[in-house]
């Protein structure tokens, strides 16, 4: 046993001090680096096009570079400044308008995320326990995602306003986008249980419920979180698309529509709103990552 003890200590020295923080730091530095490169590219292309009068001669061909003009692609500085300037005369600065509208959108997105997540999970459990259901219904679930959301959204708005519940239409539209990854990934997680892990349960004469709670569900958790991360960002997209035909006055989708209509007055406002929409999605994503870190704690750090 002496030899064994020595061997195990060395295994643990490696296991307990993994270079996690270094890896995380490196990843953060890397994404910051990529962002800086992207911003430099943005401004570099603009400067290059401006100095060539937005035209590039290659041999006899002329390439139009006007998409890099200030009208089409504003300076980053102008976009940043747009946040602090009022969108309407004597109104609040744009950032506070955006925060308020983002609040509405995020609310719908979270609603859609929960609704879609719950429904998607339920479908997966059903499919995991019935091959017949899976064979019969899964093709329709897949088909549902080939119909463009933008085509369905107006119908859902109409249905819910007829039912006198128009506030619900946006979360439902978002849910339409979020249930699908949850169903697919959860189903895979629930059914990809190793044969011997299942036989172990059978050797204890465990009930189906115990097998589900103590084996299938925890086995599926990493995949469920993969789905939830996709769903989190998709729910923000779904909420914004849902706002477009809703006729509501609030939300980032409505703001995007307004600023697009008056784009010529101030291009940076629309760009600032797009950036805000992206930020909301990233924020939601990061919340899920955090929850995942709290719950899925058993995995090797490098197996991410």
């Amino acid at each position, binding site marked *: 046993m002496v030899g*064994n003890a020595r*061997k195990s200590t060395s295994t*643990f020295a490696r296991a307990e001090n993994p270079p996690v923080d270094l890896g995380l730091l490196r990843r953060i530095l890397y994404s910051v680096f990529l962002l800086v490169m992207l911003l430099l590219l943005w401004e570099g292309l603009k400067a290059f096009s401006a100095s060539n009068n937005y035209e590039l001669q290659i041999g006899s061909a002329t390439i139009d570079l006007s998409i890099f003009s200030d009208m089409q692609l504003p300076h980053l500085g102008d976009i940043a400044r747009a946040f602090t300037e009022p969108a309407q005369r004597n109104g609040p600065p744009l950032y506070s308008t955006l925060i308020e509208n983002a609040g509405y959108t995020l609310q719908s997105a979270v609603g859609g995320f929960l609704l879609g997540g719950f429904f998607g999970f339920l479908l997966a459990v059903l499919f995991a326990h019935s091959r017949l259901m899976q064979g019969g219904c899964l093709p329709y679930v897949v088909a549902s995602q080939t119909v463009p959301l933008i085509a369905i959204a107006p119908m859902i708005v109409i249905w819910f306003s007829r039912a006198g519940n128009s506030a619900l239409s946006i979360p439902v539209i978002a849910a339409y986008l979020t249930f699908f990854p949850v169903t697919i990934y959860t189903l895979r997680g629930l059914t990809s249980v190793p044969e011997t892990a299942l036989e172990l349960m059978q050797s204890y004469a465990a009930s189906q419920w115990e097998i589900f709670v103590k084996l299938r569900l925890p086995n599926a958790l990493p995949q469920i979180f993969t789905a939830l991360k996709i769903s989190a960002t998709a729910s923000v997209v779904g909420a914004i698309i849902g706002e477009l035909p809703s006729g509501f006055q609030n939300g980032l989708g409505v703001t995007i529509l307004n600023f697009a209509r008056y784009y010529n007055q101030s291009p940076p406002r629309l760009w600032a709103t797009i950036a805000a929409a992206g930020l909301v999605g990233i924020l939601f994503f990061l919340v899920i990552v955090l929850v995942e870190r709290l719950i899925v704690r*058993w995995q090797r750090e490098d197996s991410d």
Partner: protein
Amino acid sequence: MSAVISIQNVTKMFRGSDGLLVHALDNINLNVEEGEFVSLIGPSGCGKSTLLRTIADLIQPTSGKITVNNKTAAQARKDREYGFVFQSSTLYDWRTVIKNVELPLEIMKWPKNKRDARAREMLGLVELSGFEDKYPWQLSGGMQQRVSIARALAFEPNILLMDEPFGALDEMTRERMNNELLRIWTAIPRMTVVFVTHSIAEAVYLSDHVVVLSPRPGRLATIIDINLPRPRGPETRDHEDYFRLTSQVRHALRSGVRDEVLE
């Protein structure tokens, strides 16, 4: 003496993925007495795992009968008579070492404090005290397998079924695990062990009887009684009978394979 496990005329056919029938077990008859250590040995594919799994009622024989303590195998499984150890440790990744050992106790509705105490006791038995809160990936292969033995023994099953539990370990670790297993088996009175292996040395060193199976279809070739004195230890491997018995098993294995070649 009463047979704890009685296998009568057991035959098992599988429908293979190509649709053809695989004759995995052919008319097996075997009795295992209470407290015995019995090994099943044979070339791979000869039906060792299949036989072990039919005893455990994880699969059902095509024909024939298995009784365990005068009950059907299915009833014995429901009565939690079996502890099963697989070749891969089959620990649940998301559970710590101690929670893995507690798994069967949770299913058998033990109260929390009793579960915890028993799991610690079992980890002590396999000499893994201090590793309670590690996750499986933090352990070496041998340690993982010891956890799975602790888990199999936690609810005091009458019968321990082991399917090549040390097959993936290196020779040194395997010999050490063999000694541990004998120590544990001795410590638990009247526990019957059925142990699948393809190592002749391991089978002879551990067992009271070595059951030699021959392949295609899986038949019981012969049973070799191992009358080496107990307790066994490193000196057992130098015992003159040890050499005689290992070569006897080797010959039985070879003749089983030769039959197949001639057929």
